[in-house]
């Protein structure tokens, strides 16, 4: 125990290592590349559109990662918050003329309020109640959106009144502006994730994820911590929902609240690395590349429909090969090489 003499000197804390500087370099280069994409000679609306789709997808993954990855609370129905963001912004604009620049925040606040109600009911209970409640509430909102067609447009969905290129209401004919906005959102969400992984609130949240009982014994207010994390995650998800709405200019109940959407939201973090800052980014990028790649390949080969199958198979292979996500896989390989046991996940 304490009597044993330890060989290694304590590592000075807080100093970034060489690897971290290199990672920072890659990150800056990648951001610069994405931001300058429209300037490149081969860039066109199609390519930029794919990148925008990827960025929105990544933002959703980052938002879900906050409550599920860092907080360990499995939300199977995050479509609720996505849908509230999209519908909220759209309805505020169409019916009240409120610009999405403001509407986005109001919709995020609404999503946050719904999140607090869900959390207040389910977080006092242990076990799967939270996960179940999110599914049930998703389904309920999908039905509501279909039923109140006078307000929501029902099954056909909600179409945003289009005014051409009008930056004041977050509308453009060309996708470049969305590229920059989505990139800014992804960067902001990345910063939020990094803060959670390092800061006091995030530390409490990770403690709750790792061992709820030990966390409460250590003085963490578990209920309040989970509630705040869900509020944050829901608001972030709603902001990504606004982006989706403004980019596509329409939303329908299935896309907004459907379970398939809720599952899509979970994939970037699961594929890339749950509870990590880089995971949703890597996972989201890979999935969009994969879905575009298989799509193009299958239509070239005249094998329509095979793309979805191929996409599913590759995802399955990743999950089988790297159950802790791509970043978790790389980390455990690295640890194996340095001769230590592989952790179950975590880190950034």
């Amino acid at each position, binding site marked *: *125990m*304490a*009597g*044993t003499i*330890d060989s*290694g*000197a*304590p*590592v000075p*804390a807080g100093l970034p290592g060489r690897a971290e500087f290199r990672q920072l370099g890659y990150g800056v280069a990648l951001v610069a590349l994405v931001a300058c994409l429209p300037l490149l000679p081969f860039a066109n609306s199609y390519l930029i559109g794919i990148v925008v789709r990827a960025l929105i997808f990544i933002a959703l993954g980052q938002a879900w990662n906050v409550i599920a990855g860092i907080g360990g609370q499995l939300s199977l129905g995050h479509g609720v918050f996505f849908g509230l963001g999209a519908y909220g912004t759209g309805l505020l604009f169409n019916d009240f003329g409120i610009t999405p620049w403001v509407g986005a925040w109001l919709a995020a606040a609404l999503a946050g309020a719904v999140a607090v109600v869900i959390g207040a009911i389910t977080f006092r209970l242990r076990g799967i109640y939270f996960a179940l409640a999110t599914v049930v509430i998703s389904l309920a909102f999908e039905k509501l959106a279909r039923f109140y067609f006078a307000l929501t447009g029902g099954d056909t969905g909600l179409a945003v009144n289009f005014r051409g290129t009008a930056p004041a209401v977050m509308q453009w004919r060309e996708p470049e502006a969305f590229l920059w906005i989505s990139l800014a959102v992804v960067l902001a969400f990345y910063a939020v994730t990094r803060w959670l992984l390092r800061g*006091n*609130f995030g*530390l*409490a949240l*990770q*403690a709750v*994820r*790792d*061992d709820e*009982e*030990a*966390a*409460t*014994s*250590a*003085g*963490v*207010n*578990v209920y309040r911590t989970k509630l705040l994390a869900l509020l944050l995650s829901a608001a972030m998800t709603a902001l990504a929902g606004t982006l989706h709405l403004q980019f596509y200019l329409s939303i329908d109940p299935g896309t907004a609240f459907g379970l398939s959407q809720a599952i899509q939201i979970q994939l970037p973090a699961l594929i890339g690395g749950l*509870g990590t800052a880089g995971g949703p980014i890597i996972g989201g990028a890979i999935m969009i590349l994969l879905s575009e790649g298989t799509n193009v390949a299958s239509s070239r080969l005249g094998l329509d429909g095979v793309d979805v199958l191929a996409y599913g198979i590759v995802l399955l292979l990743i999950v089988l090969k790297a159950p802790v996500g791509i970043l978790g896989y790389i980390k455990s390989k690295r*640890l194996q090489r340095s001769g*230590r*046991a592989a*952790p*179950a*996940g*975590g*880190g950034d």
Partner: protein
Amino acid sequence: MTLLAVESLRVAYGDLTAVHDISFSVEPGEIFVLLGANGAGKTSVLRAISGLLKPTRGTLNSEGVSLLGLRPDQVAHLGIAHVPEGRRIFPNLTAEENLDVSFIRQRSKETLAQLRDRVYGIFPRLASRRRQTANTMSGGEQQMLAIGRALMNTPKLLMLDEPSLGLSPLMTELMFEQLARIRDQGASILLVEQNASCIDMATRGLLLANGHTMLSGDHAKLRDSDFVRRAYLGV
């Protein structure tokens, strides 16, 4: 003032009563042991004190303040720290982050660095592991970390649930020595154990069997009793 007063405590899980009518008190500077075999109700007593479960009957007071109805985190902030059974560390956090979790919501006169240094003073091994993820640490180190985390709350009373579980006899002896040092630095200790060797350092204690008090008294009385001899031999 009495640091912890437990009066007529009863804990039941549905129809099953785990703790029947238990009373004891812990005074400042004491090492008090709750001794007993598996299923004797020791853990239930600790969990009731720390707010992890609601007692069916009885009162719990610390320096005149009732603990009944408080959440575990509120009990921790009163200076009653619970080290639960089985090395409940946060596996994905580093050793230092594990310690820091206890500091987050604390209103302490000491700074984070001062508190960490005190823990590292007691467990130097943790200082050299501070940047290491807790799930890569050895069993003994994880137990030290769990105790260190509780010490970050600057407890008046440190409650430990079978800290010797799974440790070698040598490790166990060393750990008991650390507990004596922690007591010397001003914290009282409430220790739950099956391992009767802890009697040597206890001031007073209680022997539990099937949720009832079989024996209570000071160090000498516990040491010389037939009950304890039998428990110690594992009969």
